[in-house]
């Protein structure tokens, strides 16, 4: 939390175009692609602008120094390596849910059910984690696998109902969020409550199921920094999503069903099957946000642990325009906002709930400006 970011920004701004071109060369992006990326970025910049103006107005109305709040926000996120580690730590679950929403969006499905999927996923990971005590090399993959299977299975219900009966996934995934939260709440309170504790939580998972912290491999990160290998997993999943959507036949079928279901049917793609496995894939990725909490943060399942990671994932997906790499950055940005909001609340009296409003306005602006997603009425019959 020291240093003046303003100086460096004004220094680099004339160099920025060159940096973009050189970066593009390195990533072997052609000139028309740069224009396309800039064109895609413009509405997003516009939406972010609206949000920043609105945010400043609200902060101003609260009688706070707007610049001071932004300074805290930026320093809290990027002020030091330790701070940035916390940002990436906060962003990890959002990367998972953002990618999960993205994968579903690409197939024309709106998965609002990430919240429920990460709850059942997190619970499955915790259940395996506190029942078994294998060496880490076996237990960690086993827990992750259990979470992914649970998340995929939970999401599959909405997929099957859509594919078989044509019930729109939006209402079903929302209903299943409520059910997942109530169900895990029941399991924690009535069956797996940790003895002698008032907090509704399960017993801790085995030490061998803890995800190692990055600080244990990289000496320059402070030992107290909670950033763990879940973040590396998030990077891997981002790469996987990009590869899957761009380079595989399954990814192609998924996008075809999203863009033109009739064409897909005509081309011999089984739309129903694609719908179901897309939801399962989406649910499996979303469940990793639960893994992050259970195995990388609290090391147990805490009732009602998620502050809405599944919903923030929607903002990340929209902000990243459903492009995996961009979603990664959008999630990190939201993670930074999330952490920044906490610090702002500590240093000034701007409540962190402002972040919720900002996020909603951001989604509204993005949806109003550019986002056209292939969809029908809520009760579309397939």
């Amino acid at each position: 939390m020291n240093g003046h970011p303003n100086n460096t920004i004004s220094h680099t701004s004339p160099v920025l175009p060159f940096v973009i071109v050189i970066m593009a060369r390195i990533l072997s992006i052609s000139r028309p692609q740069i224009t396309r990326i800039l064109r895609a970025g413009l509405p997003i910049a516009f939406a972010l602008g609206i949000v920043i103006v609105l945010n400043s107005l609200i902060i101003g109305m609260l009688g706070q120094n707007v610049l001071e709040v932004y300074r805290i926000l930026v320093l809290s996120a990027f002020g030091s390596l330790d701070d940035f580690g916390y940002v990436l730590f906060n962003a990890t679950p959002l990367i998972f849910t953002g990618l999960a929403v993205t994968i579903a969006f690409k197939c024309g499905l709106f998965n609002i059910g990430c919240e429920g999927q990460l709850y059942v996923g997190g619970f499955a990971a915790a259940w395996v984690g506190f029942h078994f005590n294998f060496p880490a090399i076996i237990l960690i993959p086993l827990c992750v696998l259990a979470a992914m299977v649970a998340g995929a299975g939970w999401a599959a219900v909405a997929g099957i109902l859509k594919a078989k009966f044509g019930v729109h996934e939006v209402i079903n995934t929302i209903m299943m969020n409520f059910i997942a939260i109530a169900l895990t709440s029941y399991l924690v309170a009535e069956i797996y409550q940790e003895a002698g504790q008032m907090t509704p939580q399960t017993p801790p998972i085995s030490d061998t199921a803890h995800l190692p912290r990055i600080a244990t491999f990289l000496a320059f990160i402070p030992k107290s920094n909670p950033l763990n290998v879940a973040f590396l997993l998030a990077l891997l999943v981002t790469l996987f999503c990009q590869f899957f959507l761009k380079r595989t036949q399954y990814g192609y079928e998924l996008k075809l069903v999203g863009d033109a279901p009739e064409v897909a049917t005509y081309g011999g793609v089984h739309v129903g099957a694609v719908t179901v496995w897309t939801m399962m894939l989406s649910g499996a990725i979303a469940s990793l946000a639960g893994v992050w909490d259970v195995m990388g943060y609290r090391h147990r399942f805490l009732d009602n642990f998620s502050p809405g990671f599944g919903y923030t994932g929607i903002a990340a997906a929209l902000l990243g325009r459903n492009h995996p790499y961009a979603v990664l950055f959008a999630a990190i940005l939201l993670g930074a906002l999330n952490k920044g909001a906490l610090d702002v609340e500590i240093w000034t009296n701007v409540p962190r709930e402002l972040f919720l409003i900002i996020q909603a306005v951001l989604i509204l602006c993005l949806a109003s400006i550019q986002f056209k997603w292939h969809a029908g009425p809520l009760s579309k019959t397939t």
Partner: protein
Amino acid sequence: MSTPLALAGLGGVYSERSGVVNIALEGIMLISAFGYVIGTSASGSAWAGLLIGIGFGTAIALVHAIASISFRADQIVSGVAINFLAIGVTEFLNRKATSPRVEGLTQWNLPLFGSYSCLVYITLLLTVGTHVFLFKTPWGLRLRAAGESTEALNMLGLSRARWQYIGVMASGVLAGLGGCFLASEAHYFTKGITAGRGYVALAAVIFGNWTPYKTAAACLLFGFANALQLESRWQIPSQLLQCLPYLLTMVVLVGVIGKSKPPASLGK
């Protein structure tokens, strides 16, 4: 138990009949429940609270209308954003777990019916009123035309957008009333007071085939499922009973899809 659902459901009928998917019912209910509590505790009068609650609901419905009609945002994405907005605004303004206790609305004691909040009776009237408006008046016909056939409206030289605005605003008023009812019965505001009732109401609209009477009847069914939670005679854990309305919603939707017909240009 069914009254807030039925009010939101009727709101959903107006909005969806005009061709706008209104998943924002949940957010409208939440923010107007909050408005009711603020208004009542500030003015001391439940009626003033009711007006302010409806005002809040209508205002947020207007945001949904602007985004989804004027800016042609995806209606579902916009609706979801409205729900987040309502959560954000209420939590921002009400940072304690619960609000101060406020008065409820007047209870009317009618012979034959017994003593219920006046909104229960008003809801019955509104159900009939909605039916009459939608199916017996030229305005109702126009509103339905906005959801069925844009060409017909265009030929008459009428603005589709205007009727859609009216539909969405009407849903703001009605779902707003529903939210006020929730707060009035509970006597306070707490986060999650709506508990997904807006979504359940939307399911009731689909189940009710987009007609006021059937939607209200569907809400009775869902209200019954909700009321079962209060039944403590059985040895069923409360968390599992909580799931019941949501499960019922899913089951009902599976059963009804294909038999129930949405307005032709809903969501477009």
